[in-house]
Each structure stands twice: as C-alpha cells, then as structure tokens.
C-alpha cells in the first residue's frame, strides 16, 4: 500500500538564500497520526506548504498516496486537506459559503457539497452561524470553520498546522476528540504543535525538526529513550539545547 506522505531529500531555498529545508526525508503511513515538533523557524510550516502546493520545493520529491505533489499536483492535492496556522478565511464569504466554495474548488458537485457542508456545520456547532460572514465569527468559531473547511472534500491526509494555538481548553479538547475520531475512521493526520502533551497524547509517531532537518523520530517513548531522558518534553529540550529548563531539574533543585 502506498504511503500517505513520502518526502525524499526535500530542499527549500528561498530567493533570499535562506535554506528552510535542508534535505528532509519523511514517511507517514496510511492511517497514522503523525506529529511534527520543533521550535519556531525549524521548517515545519515550509514542509507543509511544499506538500500542499503553497511553496515550491527547490529539490527533492514529495508523494501523497503515491501521487507526485509537484508534477501530478491535482491528484495529490485532492487527497490533502490543510488547516493552516493562520485564520485565513475569506472575509467576503459566509460560514456556509466558505465550505461550499472550498468544495467547489475541489470539484465536488453541488448536491454533495450541500450535504457535506450541512454535516460539517452540525459537527462543528456552526449551523446557527451558517449565514454569518466569516469576519464576524469568534476566534474559536473561525478555528473550527478552518478545520471543517479542510475536511470538506474528504481528504485522506489531513494536515493540521498548530490547530490549537491560542484556543481555550474546551475547544482544544473538542478538537482533539474530533481529530481522534476521524483518525480512527481512517484519515491519516499530520499535526504540528508546540504543545508536547498534545503530541504525546494524540500521535502514534513524532518527528523532531530543527534548523531545516528531521533530527529524530519515533514514538514518544523511543524519542525519550534516544535522548536518555524520561519524557518527550525533556527530549525536546535536549533537541533545542535548553535542558536546564527541564521540569525534572527544576523540581529536583527545590530545597
């Protein structure tokens, strides 16, 4: 069976000369819940943008369920749903239109779009807001709508770029439940987050990125073992060279 996402020696160099990705290779199995962690500027978003067509790779290959994301982008993009970090909703559209237009961009017939939009508005408690313009929605509603939009065309791979940044506790848990459910239903998920407990709780496997490279990957237990520490957080701190911040040390230093 084809991998959900297969990235081979991916390089992204911007015209300014900045090398955001320095030869990244990564394989995500079909059905997996995969976490991508790393400090700001590590290249996580660039990697996601290369996989979804928002950025153009300088070198290397990306395949989504076997489809080359650069040369056969149409098939590859059909299989991917992206919930980006920014709340990039179209201010001219209503909540329902946001889903309907997205479905249209992905070639869904009207009847199917209607049914799917109704289902998603209900699932994300947005039905009452269906005719409101997106700019009038609260931050939490915008976040939910972005996730609903990503799911609109029934992607087999869902990419979540920091979906819970700035989100309150209830919504975070709601989003967790929802993505766990769709993962259980067979959707592969690639999640980037700064919340380590989120990654630990949700992800089957995790990769650490730093300075444009994947520096370690495995289950959260494997990562902790490979760094010789007790937790995912501590292995992360090892990665970014800030082990003095470890809560184990802080606790241990208390008189």
């Amino acid at each position, binding site marked *: 069976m084809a991998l959900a996402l297969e990235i081979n020696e991916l390089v992204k160099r911007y015209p300014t000369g900045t090398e955001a990705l320095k030869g990244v290779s990564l394989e995500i199995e079909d059905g997996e819940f995969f976490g991508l962690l790393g400090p700001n500027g590590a290249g996580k978003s660039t990697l996601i943008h290369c996989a*979804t067509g*928002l950025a*153009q790779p300088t070198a290397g290959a990306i395949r989504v369920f076997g489809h080359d994301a650069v040369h056969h982008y149409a098939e590859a*993009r059909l299989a991917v749903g992206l919930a980006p970090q920014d709340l990039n909703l179209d201010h001219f*559209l209503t909540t329902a239109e946001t889903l309907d237009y997205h479905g249209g*961009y992905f070639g869904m017939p009207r009847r199917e779009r209607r049914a799917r939009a109704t289902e998603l508005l209900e699932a994300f408690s947005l039905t009452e807001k269906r005719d409101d313009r997106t700019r009038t929605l609260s931050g939490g509603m915008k976040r939910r709508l972005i996730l609903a939009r990503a799911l609109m065309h029934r992607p087999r791979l869902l990419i979540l770029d920091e979906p819970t940044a700035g989100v309150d506790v209830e919504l975070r848990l709601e989003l967790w439940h929802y993505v766990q459910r769709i993962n259980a239903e067979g959707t592969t998920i690639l999640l980037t987050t700064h919340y380590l407990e989120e990654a630990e709780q949700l992800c089957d496997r995790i990769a650490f990125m730093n300075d444009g490279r994947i520096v370690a990957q495995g289950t959260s237990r494997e990562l902790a073992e490979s760094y010789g520490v007790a937790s995912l957080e501590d292995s992360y701190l090892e990665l970014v060279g800030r082990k003095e911040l470890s809560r184990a040390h802080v606790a241990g230093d208390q008189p």
Partner: protein
Amino acid sequence: MTATQIRLFTLVRREVTRFMKIKRQTLGAPMLETFLYISVFGAALGSRIDKLHGFDYVVFIVPGLIMMAWAMNAFSNNASSILQQKFQRAIDDQLASPASPLELLLAFSLGGFLRGMIVSTITFTAAALLVSIPVEHVLVLIPSLFLVGFFFAQLGVLVGVRAEQFDDISFYQTFLLTPLIFLGGVFYSAELLPEPFQTLTYFDPVYYMIGLVRYGFLGYSDTSVALSLLFLAAATLALFATNYRLFTSGYRLRA
C-alpha cells in the same frame, strides 16, 4: 458538469460574489461617476460645444465613457481582489486546491471582466435612455469591448499579483491608467489638440482602443480599425501570456 468545470465555475463565482457583496462601491460608485461625466461634460458643457465629426458632443463621448468604465472596473476589481486575498492569505484555499495555473488565471481575470461588463452595460442603457446612441458596427464593437475588457482585466491581475500594498495599486491607477485613458481622447477628438500633444496622443495605446469603440458605436474613427484591432488583440495576448507565465511559476503567489 466535470470536476474541472465545477472548479472553474466556483472560482469565477467567488470573484463575482465578492463584488456583488460590495456593490455600492463596485457597481454603484462607477455608475455615479459615469452619470456625473455625462451630466457635466455632456449636458452642461456639451451644449456649448459644436458638433464633433457630425455628432452631438454628448453622443461623441459616450462610447469612450463606456469603454473607460469597462477598463477601469476590470483593472481595479482584479488588482484589489487578488491583493486582498493575498493579504488575508485566503488565496491559499484556491492555491492548495487542484486548480491549474490556467484555471486560476482565467477565474481571477473574469471577475473584473464581468464587473466591467455589467457597469458598461448599465452605462450604455442609461445613456441610451437619455440620448440616442447609434450602434453602427456591432461586429467591431463587441470584439473591441471584449478585448479592451480582457486587456485591462489582465493588467489588473498583473498588478494585483505584483502588489505588496494597496498603494501599489492606486499608484498604477492614478499615475498610469487615469492619464492614459483621459489623454487617450475619451472627452475630445485628438484632432482638436495642438502639437505636440496631438502626436503624443498617437503613442497612447488607449487612443486606439477608444477609436475602435467609437467606430463600433458611431461609425466614425480617426484610427485604422483593422490595425487597431490587430494590435489590441496582440497586446492582450502578450499580457495574458505574461500572466500565464507568472501563474505557472507561482510568482508572489506560492513561496
């Protein structure tokens, strides 16, 4: 409908929805502007101006006004729409869809083209109610107006893609388009100008566009109709090809 047709239709629908939701600004304002031109230049001043090439002054300027409405609206719609979507990053929803560069370019072009067409049609209808406007060569008029509309739609796309702030758009509009259109002879016949302005006018491409449209309506032109059409078609094609190259390369749209 095939998936490609649904996609293209939705992409165009998004552009039309945008200007229809702010129609006071996108349709109302340009119509008021044209009405003011007709009243001030046509009714008030026009009664004191002799006939131009056998036509009442107000009749002489209406073809130019119709063309100007199409051109200005096609340009500003596309430039603003693209820049706004780039600002909000809402454009990522279209860019991460399976839409090809050609589909995206066509959709962004058609938005302004259609807005220009609506404003021009209403302008024509309103003018025709006030004064009798002949339509002498409809087979020259329609292709000429379509080409002018499409040319400025392309120019709008080009400026919108290149622009990084709204000032970039108003710069082109104020310092390039408005002078070229006004000095191209919307309100007068170039023959009335003293030298060197008469000769300078011949270097203004808009002069030939107005010539074509005026010929279509009034049957009078001081430029060569066939040559003007040929050049206009060539210029439109060249601009379209330039934009197509930009969209294929992802210039300022994809990182």
